[in-house]
């Protein structure tokens, strides 16, 4: 079984990496060896123009060993967009996901509790999928396995974090203060990031990539502004058993007054739950027994008492109106699967927040992934944005190298920032607006959003555009 799951080589790699002697100086240091950080390391090491760079990944956690079990599913799953799959395929990491397990999503069905409005997204071709549901551990081991194969170019250090980051931009600020406002010549100054690790090791690098998550220490060292607010919500995750084996290829999402509930397919008999609700309700739900929790969940998925009559009437008229002008969208009367059990111990909760660094780069430093931006999980786009950052950063680094510019020079990093923010900011705004739009029960808002949703559902070209944006 072990060899089938391909984890043995993975484990060996990890242990050999941890004993590696570190160099004094690296071209690139990546703080944080999570999904996005490791993926960035793979992307750099597998690029023909960048592979001569020496890369170090600093991962504060233990090397994670996945105890592979075909029976137990992780409660933490990602919805991997087609664009992210393409990147992973390019990096030869997707093959590990294929060898382990993933579930393609053929259709995404969204509906709400306050009206009959519904929308469904589906790729026009049968062999294309809306997204792929992949467990955290599967995705992590795919990226880590690839990183292990690239160990001649990438050093990885575990169980250590950086104690201090000494950034050239901050040093220059200090110099400027000392020297007044006189313009200074940059030559002769060390334009390198100096890092001291928690065991006292000192390192230098031309480019520090901050992939160290929402409370990024790199971001704090950069001193950039970080906009953030908490949604006062928690996401409850769990693995659920379905009543019978079925073609489980639809992702379901229902907006309720307390927050969206999503069911993502894991296999024929299981789905994964992401239930966003307010903190108070989440505490209550976590305290329930498995049976009570299941009842509460089924009620939240099925309850009709929030329905607004006015919205129902408006939708009827709209339906007739659309019918006059063209084909009514196929009305999927398909209903979400019946849930019969919660996997023991799979229930957990995490807080939801929005965060955005106003700058992703300063000279010789760049932020990627959650360190730069964090969004509500309702569209399942968070990790995909992180992978999108990797693509944008790689393009900027390729350009740096092709122009013979110094690694980490600001003009090229700014090109990364522009590119990444062009993707992130609209998605972030859309997801936050959706969250706000659906957290109200005010009847006029319900009527308008219901009409809007059904109109969009009837308009295939518009849906295509939306899907294109959401596939990154």
């Amino acid at each position, binding site marked *: 079984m072990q060899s089938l799951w391909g984890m043995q080589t993975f484990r060996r790699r990890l242990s050999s990496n941890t004993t590696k002697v570190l160099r004094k100086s690296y071209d690139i240091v990546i703080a944080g060896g999570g999904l996005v950080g490791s993926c960035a390391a793979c992307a750099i090491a597998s690029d023909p123009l960048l592979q001569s760079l020496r890369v170090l990944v600093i991962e504060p956690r233990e090397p994670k060993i996945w105890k592979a079990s075909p029976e137990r599913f992780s409660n933490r799953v990602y919805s991997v967009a087609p664009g992210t799959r393409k990147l992973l395929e390019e990096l030869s990491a997707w093959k590990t996901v294929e060898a382990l397990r993933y579930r393609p999503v053929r259709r995404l069905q969204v509906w709400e509790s306050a009206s009959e409005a519904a929308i469904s997204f589906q790729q026009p071709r049968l062999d294309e999928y809306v997204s792929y549901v992949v467990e955290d551990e599967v995705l992590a081991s795919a990226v880590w396995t690839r990183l292990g194969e690239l160990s001649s170019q990438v050093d990885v250090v575990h169980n250590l974090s950086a104690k201090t980051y000494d950034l050239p931009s901050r040093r220059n600020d200090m110099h400027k203060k000392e020297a007044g406002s006189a313009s200074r010549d940059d*030559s002769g100054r060390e334009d390198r990031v100096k890092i001291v690790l928690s065991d006292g090791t000192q390192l230098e690098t031309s480019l520090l990539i901050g992939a160290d998550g929402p409370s990024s220490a790199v971001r704090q060292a950069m001193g950039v502004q970080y906009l953030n607010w908490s949604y006062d919500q928690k996401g409850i995750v769990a693995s659920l058993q379905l009543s019978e084996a079925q073609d489980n290829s639809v992702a379901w999402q229902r907006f309720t007054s307390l927050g969206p509930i999503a069911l993502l397919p894991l296999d024929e008999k299981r789905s994964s739950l992401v239930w966003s609700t307010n903190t108070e309700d989440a505490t209550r739900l976590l305290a329930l027994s498995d049976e009570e929790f299941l009842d509460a969940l089924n009620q939240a998925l099925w309850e009709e008492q929030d329905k607004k009559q006015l919205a129902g009437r408006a939708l009827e008229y709209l339906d007739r109106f659309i019918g006059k002008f063209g084909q009514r969208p196929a009305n999927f009367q398909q209903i979400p699967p019946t849930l019969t059990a919660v996997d023991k111990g799979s229930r957990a909760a995490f807080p939801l927040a929005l965060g955005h660094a106003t700058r992703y780069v300063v000279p010789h430093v760049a932020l990627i992934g959650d360190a730069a931006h964090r969004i509500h999980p309702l569209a399942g786009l968070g990790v995909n944005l992180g992978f999108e950052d990797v693509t944008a950063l790689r393009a900027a680094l390729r350009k740096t190298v092709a122009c013979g510019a110094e690694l980490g020079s600001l003009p090229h990093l700014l090109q990364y920032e522009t590119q990444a923010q062009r993707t992130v900011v609209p998605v972030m705004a859309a997801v936050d607006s959706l969250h706000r739009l659906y957290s109200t029960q005010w009847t006029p808002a319900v009527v308008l959003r219901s009409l809007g949703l059904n109109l969009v559902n009837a308009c295939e070209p518009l849906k295509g555009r939306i899907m294109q944006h959401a596939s990154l």
Partner: protein
Amino acid sequence: MNHCATHILRRLPRHTRTCIAQRTFLSPVHNCHETNHKLPYSSASAFASENAATSSVDAKEASFFGKMSDQWWNKTGDFRALQALNELRVPFISDAYIAYGLRGPSQSSQRALRQNSPFPLRNIKILDVGCGGGLLSEPLARLGATVTGIDMVEESIRTAEQHWETVKNPTSTQGDIEYLHGTIEELALTRAGDFDVVVCSEVVEHVSDVASFVASVSQLTRPGGVTVFSTINRTICSFAGAIVAAEYLLRLVPRGTHHHGKFVTPEELESFLRNNGFTVRMKHGALYNPIIRRWTCSAFDAVNYFVAAVKAEDAADQSR
């Protein structure tokens, strides 16, 4: 020849590629600094005295650039636009060489190797005429080239040497740079035919005798080698753009950096190159956007333009 060009151009950013494919092109900012080195005369003192008779401008410029020599690497200073120009001129130089300058057998496989390498200019000898503080020499060395930078201004050469000491990466496979203080006429006496590529970026607009300057460039280029010029056209647009806008309105470069009368048109430059055994292979315009501070390739060559030319294999002694 265009097959090669398009092939090579794949490594360029898309917009650059398009422009180059159209064979129109871009060009740089007024790289005023380079002025001094360009002088075709043989030594600094001879140069100053000789010019005193015809024009004192060059000598004044030389001292002007001498005073600015600590500004070369200032990321927010007068040379900012010139620093940004590397994004276009470095790929232009390496593409021109890979497309037209390779020698020896199996050129197509060499070409493919270099295109996908982080060191496309490995083992190539490049002369950077009017190197100033080394803004162009350093990136070329990072791409693997062995670079000789020459400049008339001693202070600039010192700045360049110091900067390279602090940034060079001794463990990497990148090339190295030697900086020389002097003129290319002097250099041509000892190193004739020594260079695979001779780069004169933002230089000819500061040279008083372009014909003899190009002749020296030709002497230094090996037969079959490549020379790349980037400079400013002599048009109404260039007066408005490179002088009025850049020096007076936007203050991108210091006043007095450029003199419209010394600008060289592509036709003139081409004829000088032809007379010295070169064939022009690539020509493009470049435009600077002062808001985003980036250069883009353009078909519009009335202000800045780039030219790449190949020296004939048997042209060793055609140059006067």
